[in-house]
Structure formats: C-alpha cells, structure tokens
C-alpha cells in the first residue's frame, strides 16, 4: 500500500531536510510542472479527483479554475496554505508540517504556477511551534535552493512565500476570516459570493487550500492523475487520506489510508478497538463539528459521500470516539463551550445562540435542566442550520448537538429526570 504523504517520515522525529526530501523524489513534481503549461497542470489536478482535505471536500482543480488567468489579467494573486488547524480532535496537518514541510511548500509552488500567483502565505496555528520551526527552516532552504524567489528553477516563475503565525482563534481556520486576519482586520468571515478565487486577500484573486491538500499536489504531478486515482478506494475522490482516532481506543493515532476505507477498518484494525471494559457508542468522524456516527454506521466508507449519506460528514477525517462510560451530554457541552467561545461575534445566531446552547447543556449536566431546554436545543439546531449564519462555524457546532439529540436522546432526558449526570460518581 502506497502512503505518499507519510511514507518518508523519519523515525527520529526530525523533519526531512531539503536534501532528504529531494532524495525521496522531492521537487520532481515542481520540475515536471514547470515544464508543463499551467493549463496542463490544472487539468492534471482536475483529473486526479483531489478533493479539499480541510473538511469541505471541494474539488481542488475546480477551485483553482475559478481564478481569472490569462495575459489581460494583471492583478496580484495569492496562494494561501490554511495551516490553522484548530478543529477539535484534529492533528493531521500538524503531522505533515512537522515531518515533511517541503512537501507542502512544493505543493504551494505548483499551485502558484498553475494560477500564476506570485505571493503566498502559510497561515499557521499559533500553538504549532515545532511546525513553525520546521517551516522556517524549510522556507530558507527552498529560497537558498532557488525553489522560491525570483525565476524559480530558471523557468521564469516568481514566488514569495511567507510564514504567518496566527494568534490563535478557531475562526481563522474559516478561509475568509483567515483572509481578514491576514490583512490585519478582525477575523470575521466574509459573505460568499464572491469567493476568494475572485476577491480574496486584499480583494485580489486568492487560493486557500488545506495543508494536506497541498501536500498531495507534488505527488499528483510527479506520478500522474491516474496513479493518484488508483490510490483511493472511493469512486468519488482520489488519493490517500490521513485518518486519525482519539478517545478511549487502544491505539489512538493517525494513519494514511486509501480514501474510502470503512470506519470499522480504521477503528478496529488501526486504532485496535476500544480499551478494556469499554464499548463503542459512537464517534464524531471528522472533528468536533461533524455529526455522530454510531455502531450501525461502522461499515460506512469514509470518503466524502459515505458519512454524508447517513447525515454526517467526513470533515477532517480525524475521529473522536465516544465510549459507553462517557457522558454524551458532557462531550457535547465541552464542544459547545469551545464553539461559543470561538464565535467571532459577527452574526446573531452564532454569537447569541451558541452561548445559550452552552448554558443549557451546562444546566443539564448540573442537574438544573428542564423539559423546555430540549425544545430550545432542538430549535437552536434549526436556527443555526447552514445558510442561516455567516459561515460554517455555528452550523458545524450544531452537528454534534443535533446528532446527539437524535442518537442519545435518552441521555438528555435522563439528566432532566434524574436532575444530575449519572455518568459522574
């Protein structure tokens, strides 16, 4: 089984230097890309069926194709790597950045060539100090080797790349809030349309892609779209995917697997099942803002369609596992507390709705819950549904809540009837 993104990770915990990366075939993709036309590169990416790894699953080639290109277009364009990984339970980008930063940088350069951008930023989560060090070092190496700067590989491409460490706000992972933050404005999302590809950073055409998405690009160009498609065991979407598992499983961790493996395979073969004495009750398949999947969903294929068909989302593919000794209300409370705290405060449903949800869940946990609270919670899940708010933060925050209300209703009711959380001693 090929694991292009992770197979070269060194066992000593240090990241691949430029030399080491080049030895693994690094920058061959870029070299090849620069010999192709931007249109050919774009077609290859389209053909690869690479879909955005940040959680949205939008076809990467299609996204790039919205950037106005051509000779009449003299606007500055930007490439931005969204490395603000703050989704609860998610730590896949961190792995890629800390172990093989050049892979991401190379992907960004190829993307810049494709859309003819000359300026790029890596927007990094503030807490990723190790990744910051790795990137700083790697950027220096790339500049020194002529992979960045003027006239890259003597093929006429100019690209500046800067590392920007964020100040630590979940909303900065939302691509348009990220753009505002990068501009030095409040990190508040923007409405869509227009999309960043048309009016992004400083109102200029901008591509924002996730770390893992960029990391795939060099391999696609180097080895071809067909090869990439063959990696996947999904019909709709090529490549491998980084899957993770956290919670009380025997072997929490992160694994690069063909896109579309089943939930059961990840949890049973790679996470080695539940810890002794615990039973699997459900999981959030792709970070804190996805709907619960339960036992009956274990054979769902973890590609972009599978979880969606049963009302959830692949999200980031990093699974948070709920066992039978952990209170689902408490788990949701802990998530909602985070989301309420991280609301940017711009639009009403999110700013006012999330703290209310948090307060109700807290009341339930403390034994102060009443029947009416469940009605309000259910209303809030509709109130903060997609489209009702400015961005996906609040709708995402509603996903664990609405599915918990569906699958674990008896737990919520028990909190009210028993006037306490029975999971606590």
């Amino acid at each position, binding site marked *: 089984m090929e694991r292009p993104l992770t197979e070269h990770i060194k066992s000593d915990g240090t990241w691949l230097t430029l030399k080491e990366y080049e030895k693994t075939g690094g920058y061959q993709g870029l070299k090849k890309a620069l010999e192709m036309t931007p249109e050919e590169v774009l077609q290859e990416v389209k053909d690869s069926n690479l879909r955005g790894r940040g959680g949205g699953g939008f076809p990467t080639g299609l996204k790039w194709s919205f950037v106005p290109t051509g000779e009449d277009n003299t606007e500055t364009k930007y490439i931005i790597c969204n490395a603000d990984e703050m989704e609860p339970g998610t730590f896949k980008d961190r792995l890629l950045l800390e172990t093989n930063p050049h892979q991401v940088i190379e992907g960004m350069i190829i993307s810049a060539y494709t859309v003819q951008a000359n300026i790029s930023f890596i927007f990094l989560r503030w807490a990723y100090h190790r990744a910051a060090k790795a990137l700083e070092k790697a950027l220096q190496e790339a500049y020194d080797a002529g992979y960045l700067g003027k006239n890259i590989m003597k093929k006429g491409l100019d690209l500046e790349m800067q590392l920007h460490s964020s100040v630590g706000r979940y909303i900065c992972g939302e691509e348009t809030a990220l753009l505002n933050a990068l501009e030095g404005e409040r990190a508040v999302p923007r409405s869509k349309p227009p999309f960043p590809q048309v*009016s992004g950073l400083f109102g200029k055409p901008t591509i924002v892609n996730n770390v893992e998405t960029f990391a795939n690009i060099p391999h696609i160009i180097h080895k071809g779209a067909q090869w990439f498609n063959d990696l996947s065991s999904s019909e709709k979407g090529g490549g491998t995917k980084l899957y993770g598992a956290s919670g009380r499983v025997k072997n929490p961790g992160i694994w690069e697997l063909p896109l579309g493996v089943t939930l059961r395979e990840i949890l049973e073969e790679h996470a080695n099942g539940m810890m002794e004495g615990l039973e699997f009750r459900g999981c959030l398949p792709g970070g804190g803002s996805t709907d619960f999947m339960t036992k009956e969903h274990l054979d769902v294929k973890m590609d972009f369609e599978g979880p969606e068909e049963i009302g959830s989302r692949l999200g980031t593919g990093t699974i948070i596992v709920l066992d039978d000794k952990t209170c689902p209300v408490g788990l949701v409370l802990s998530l909602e507390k985070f989301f309420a705290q*991280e*609301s940017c405060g711009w639009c*009403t449903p999110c700013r006012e709705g999330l703290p209310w949800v948090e307060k109700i869940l807290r009341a339930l946990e403390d034994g102060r819950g009443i029947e009416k609270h469940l009605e309000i919670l259910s209303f809030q899940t509709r*109130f903060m549904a997609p489209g*009702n708010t400015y961005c996906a933060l609040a709708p995402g925050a509603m996903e664990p809540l609405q599915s918990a209300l569906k699958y674990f209703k008896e737990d919520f009711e028990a909190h009210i009837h028993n006037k306490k959380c029975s999971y606590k001693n």
Partner: protein
Amino acid sequence: MATIYIDDKEYEVEEGKNLLEVCLSLGLDLEYFCWHPAMDSVGACRQCGVINYKDENDTEGKLVMACMQKVTDGMRVSIEAPWAKEFRAGIIEALMINHPHDCPVCDEGGECHLQDMTIMTGHNYRRFDFNKLTLRDQYLGPFIDHEMNRCIQCYRCVRFYNDYADGVDLSVRHIASSVYFGRTQDGTLENEFSGNLVEVCPTGVFTDKTLAKHYTRKWDLTSVPSICHGCSLGCNILVSERYGSIRRILDRYNEDVNGYFLCDRGRFGYEYTNSDYRVLYPFKKTGGKQEQIDKAEALEEIKKTINSSKHTIGIGSPRASLESNYMLQRLVGKENFYAGISEKEGKLVERVKTILRDGKIKTPSMGEAEHYDTVFIIGEDLTNTAPRLALSLRQASKVAPNKKAGAKDIPDWDNVHVRKVVQRERGPFYVATTHQTKLNGIATDNIYAAPDDIARLSYAVAHEINNNLPVVEGLSKQLQKSAKAIARSLQEAEKPLIVSGTSLYSESVIDAAASLAYAMYGKNEKTGLIYTVPEVNSMGLAMLTDNYLNEACQESPELLITLENDLFRQVDCEKVTKLFENSNKSVVLESLHNATTREHDYVLPAGSFAESTGTVVSNEGRAQRFYQTFKPDNEMQSSWAWIAEIEEKGENYHFDDVVADLIEAYPDLKLVKETAPDADYRKGTQKIPRQSHRFSGRTAINTEKEVSEKKPPEDPDSPMSYTMEGFHGRTPSALTARNWAPRWNSVQAINKQQIEVGGALHDGNPGKRLLNANGSLENINSEHIPEAFKPQERKSLALPMHYIYGSEELSAKSPAVAERIPESCFILNPEDATDKDIAEGDQVEIDFNDNKIRLKVEFNETLAKGIIGVPKGFEETAGCEFPFWTEINSKT
C-alpha cells in the same frame, strides 16, 4: 427591470439591487438592523431572513438574507413563510437575550427601531432563563451617552463612524458574546459626525446627551421641519420642543442636502436657544441701563422715533431670514439698508453669487457631490467651515475606487466585498489649503500654501488643461508638479468637482476656482463647482443688497436699526463703536444679549431659528423654509413680525404676505414662495400637526393651576397646527415634522417617506434652487493672477483659523459645544517662530488696527510660512477683518 414574486404577488423591480432594499421600496415591512441605505449591506444581523424558492415547483425553498440577495428576474421569495417568520422572531429572541429591557427608562424609548422590529416579528415571550451579560459603559464626551448593555451588535456604529465618517476612536473589541463597541478608554468621541450614532444606532446604546439633560418622552415633543443655522450648507433638521425649551435636533432627510447625517455643531449647537441670555421681552436703555418695558410701550416709542427720524439706517444679517432682512430693508429704504458684514466678506459672497447665477458650471447639491469621482478643494478647511460637505466629499473620495468592485461584478450594495476590493484606496482627491486639515488624510496630494499661491496653483492647473489660458509665471517646481498631476486627474475624471469658498477672504482663490472650473468645463461639461459661504443666509442677504457694514459705519443716522447681528464680530470694533456714538437712537432685534444689544436704546426679542419662521438661502442657492417650533409665552417672535408691527401692517399681515411682497420687490426670488406650501394649505381639510398623535397629557399639563384646557395658539404663518390635531399621514416633504409611519416609530420610518429607500422623498426633496448657472458669464477674468506670496520680514499675514466648535457665534454659546471649543491660540509655523524667537506656548501679541490681541502660540509645521493663524469668531478675535498684516510682538 425584473419581475419577481413576493409571497406569490408579482412585482416589477429594478434588477441587481438587493432584495431588502427592493422590499422596503415596495412598501413591504421586513425587519432589519445592520443594513442602512447609506452604508449598504453586510448581512451581519441575519434579521431580514426570507425564503427563496428555486422555481414555482419548489415548495421548501431556502432561507436567505434579503440584504445580501441580488434581485434577479423570475425570483420567488416569501417574507411570510412560517419558517422565515419563526427565524426572524428567533433573531429577535437571540438579540434580546442580554438586552436589559429597560425600555421605560431608556432614552431611545418611543422611537426605538429594536422595539419596532421586536413587535413586527411577533416575538414576545422570553425563553432564555439564565443570567444576562453585563457590560460597563463609557464616558464619551458632552454629546453622547453610552449604554452598552442595550447593544444588539448590529455593527452599524463602527461602520458609520469608521468606514463612513473616517473616525478613528470608536471600535469594536472582544469576540463572541462579549463584543463591545466603544473607545479604548473613556473619553470624548473626536469625530465631527459622532452625533449621527444617536440615529444610526437602532437602540439606546448611543443617545443624545443634550436631550438627556432635559429629557422628555419622544411623543411629547412638539416638532417642526427646520434648517440648521450652523453654517451655509442649510442642512435640513427637525427641531423639537417641550414646555418652552428646545430639547433636541434630529436629521431631517433630504436626499439633495444632508441625507441621513448632520455634523455635531448642527446637532448639538441648539442649546443656546435655552440660554439665560435670551432676550425674552423688549428692553429700553434708560440712564445707561437696559430695563424691561412693555411691548406696546416699546412699539409706540420706536414708531414715534422712526416717524420723526429723517435718516434711518438698517443693518441686516446673514443669519436672519430673507423675510426679516427684506422687511427691514423696506422699512428703512433700499439705500439705507446695509448687509451687516464686512465689505470684504460681502464682495466675496457677491462674487460667488454672480458665478453661481451667471456662470456656466453646475453647482451640485451636497447629495450629488457624493457621486463625483475626482475632487479638488481650493482653500477651504471644510471640516471646520462647512462640516457636512466634508462628510459628503469623503464619500466622493470612494467613488473612483469603488468602480473596481463593479469590475469584479460585485454589486455596489455589497459593502463587505466593495470594501475588500477597495481596501483603503481613495481619490483622486486633492486639497490645497494654508495648513493641514482633516480632509488631508484622504487626499492623493496635499498642497499647503498661502492663499495667493493656492490661487496661482489653481490657475496653473487651468493652464495645464487649456493652454490658451495664461501661464502662471514663477511657479515653484513643487507647485508645477502638483498642478500637472491635478490637471491630469481632473481630465481623466468622469465627474470632476472643484470646491472652494470664502473662508480665506481671498477673491483670488474664488476667481481661480471658477477659472479652473471653466477650463474644465471646456473639456467636460459634467464638471461641478461648489462654493461655501460664511453663514446660513449669506447668500440670501447678497440677493438683497451690496451695501456693507463698513459704509454704514461712516453714517451718522438719527436712527439705527440692527437685525440679529453682533456687529462687533463683523468689523473692527472701533468702527462699530463710532457708529453707535454717531447714531442718535438705536433699535436692535436680537435673540441673545450680546455686546451689540448693550449699545442699543431698544432691544426687541427676536426668535432664534427655533422661534421664527422664514426662508434662508444656502451656499448652493437653495431657498429653504424653517418654522417656528412653538409659540413662546414671552414676547419673542420672528423679526419680520416685529417690523410688520412697527409698520402697522395690522393683524392680517402674515408670513405669506411678507413673501408675496418680497417676491414682488425681487422677482428673482419668486421661487421663495414655492419652497413650502402656503399657510392656507390643507391636507384634505386638515392642518399638519406639530405634535404627534401620541402626544400625551395635553390636558394634564396645567392641572395644578387650572383644569380647563387652554385654547391652543393659532399659527397664521404656516399650515401647521400647534397641537396633535391634523393630518398624520404622508405630508408634503417641506412640512414633515417627524419620522413616523404605522409600525415604524424610529428614524427608520423615513423609508416610508421615500419613493425608493435612500432616494428622493415622495413629494420631492424640499428647497428651491434660486441660482442655476444661466451661462451669461462668458469668461472668468483670469488676467488677475496674483503675485506669488512673499513673506515679509517684520510682518506676518494674519489669516483666519476656523473651528467647528467656536467659530460660529450661536452654537458656541451652547454648553455641550462650548465644552468642545479649543483654547484660542495663534498658529505659527515653527520655523517662523524660531526666526522670531518664539517658543510654543509663549504668549504673543498682534494688532489689528488699534486692537491688541494677546494669545498663546501653537505650532503647526504644515502652515505656510509668513502667516499667522488667528482663531476666527472667538471672543478675543471678534471684529478682525481678515486678511491683515501684523507684527508679532513676543515681548511682555
């Protein structure tokens, strides 16, 4: 045009607008908060959710925000769909979570948009059963009260203050549910347009502090449409009174003039009307002391004096109405009537009037000025001389950059993305002034020079545009470079605008601006030219006379009659003193006791703008009507009414008769009659009430004295009643006394008075243009290009420094404005000061004729050298006739 379906009803609407705007223009009620017609859409509050259907077979639809939804042909939406209604009620419920529900004691009470929207959505029972969040309020200065707990986070305040008015000291802080709108710390909001927060805020976070000082419930106010008397722009205002005192000023929407916004001088400068210095009764000087006398007695004596006087002169006023000035002129005879302003000022205004009347260049209204894409300001510190225009030009500075957003198919109402594409880009916008002004912050290029050099620059620009025009000899390299750049921008513009005015007291500047406008007109007929003049009715006064106070001071009349004018502020005090000495008897009509009233034998109480009815002519030549707010229980009345009594015109001679006589004497002014409906106008059979239909306690007001209801006073001068009786629907725009429509009690009700929201009023925008550039003036004499300014060794050129708070006589006497008046000081370029061995903070003395003026020195590096800036209109500098040369004496 597009055909759209709203709740299955078909409408023809303009394609491309946003759906909220379209719904409101159609007269439909749809709740909103963050959207504002002048500030467009950002989609933050989510209050205007409606259901959008794909086609007629789609029964489910999708919730969208109307303000962010572009109207397209065939669009199907529902405002009334159950989920849309439930969602909108849900938004209110969410917004109300932390709202203190202090409506009974809230200053916004009675005209709260939040309250209206709450009722409109039908939300009433509170489900939130946890504690509310509490925030700390800030001290924001003398104009505005702050109560953050009422905030519903619509972001309108910062969008107005920062994005629209370019303020810097209000911002949004913190995140999530504790978002806070305020300053970094307690302190005065510095922006000159901060008062608009009171109206922009949909609830009671920012409220009028001057109203709070003598608070009354909004529905108990007696209100009239009026005109701000704070500068020459003639902003439309609503003036409100209760129990004989003026309680507040609100913006009165006029698309052509001030739109939705006023400056703080205009909004808060009314308080002098409640001053202890008001003249309430006739006074007579006996034995050097002025004592109150009976009205009949005073009139009798004055009439006798007039009849016996062989030589009576009258001095008019640029802050009195056309009608009052005209009546005085008629009383004393045309040749004996003088404009109560210096000859210098008079000639400047006369010149502006001629250019506006006979020139070729269109003078856009302030509203139109916002749509010009390239601006060149010649010599005016607009933020201080004509503040509201500065705000309009700030919007004009965004016109050219905004076109970039259009190129990306971003609709002009999508404020989120328009701002992103534009970023901080402004202009082309050029400012040539004697020193740095607030507008310089948005300028493409700033030129600081003496008035003559500013004129020379303008002539040089004109020459660049039309090489047949004379060359400006000896222009510095720097100015040549600027001239070329300005000429290029003006010629590239779609709609170039040239703005100048009288505030530097320079004919050269005025002529140069006109010359340039003419040169531009040859290239682009869309060129606009705006001049500002000193006072609210400077232009009106110029239409009546070209005799000035300097000549009057040479006279030795048997009787001197002064109209609403502190003459000591207008010309050298010596001259005025001499005039009083040489006048046998004197009468003054004035609203406030001042230095001039003290010199007169008789003082008659004239109503201020709040207690008078009249017409004033703004800088653009727009005649506009203001009305008496209430019937005072003292002897104050319009000055023209006093003169009518002196003339013994009898009980049936009213305002309309004065206007009829005025336009007979001055046919050029015939449109004055049409500025507002006559007094016999009725809506059906009804008058227009000054009081709202919710006015409470009319019969209870005097119950401690008597239980019977007094007969309300009659107003023979207007079609308005002093009571709540009358027509409460849509009134003629010149008579609209309040913002109100069924279900809409806040200022947002103005939507219902407009044909399309943000556009013209249903009955047309009030005011009539008297000056319309008839084109008879073929050329502006551009032969008189002044010599370059040469600083003198021993003397400096004294020029006026204008201050929004302090330079205008009456507003400066309003306590809140008075708090904002800076310490009066001379402004010097530090290099000049060093040459003269003067340090910042030193007291120095200058002389104007024989008057010595002693003030502290403040440095300003941008002030052109050889000049000393002297505060205009301050007590210490009253009567200075600018410009004048003076020595600066630093010795004690």
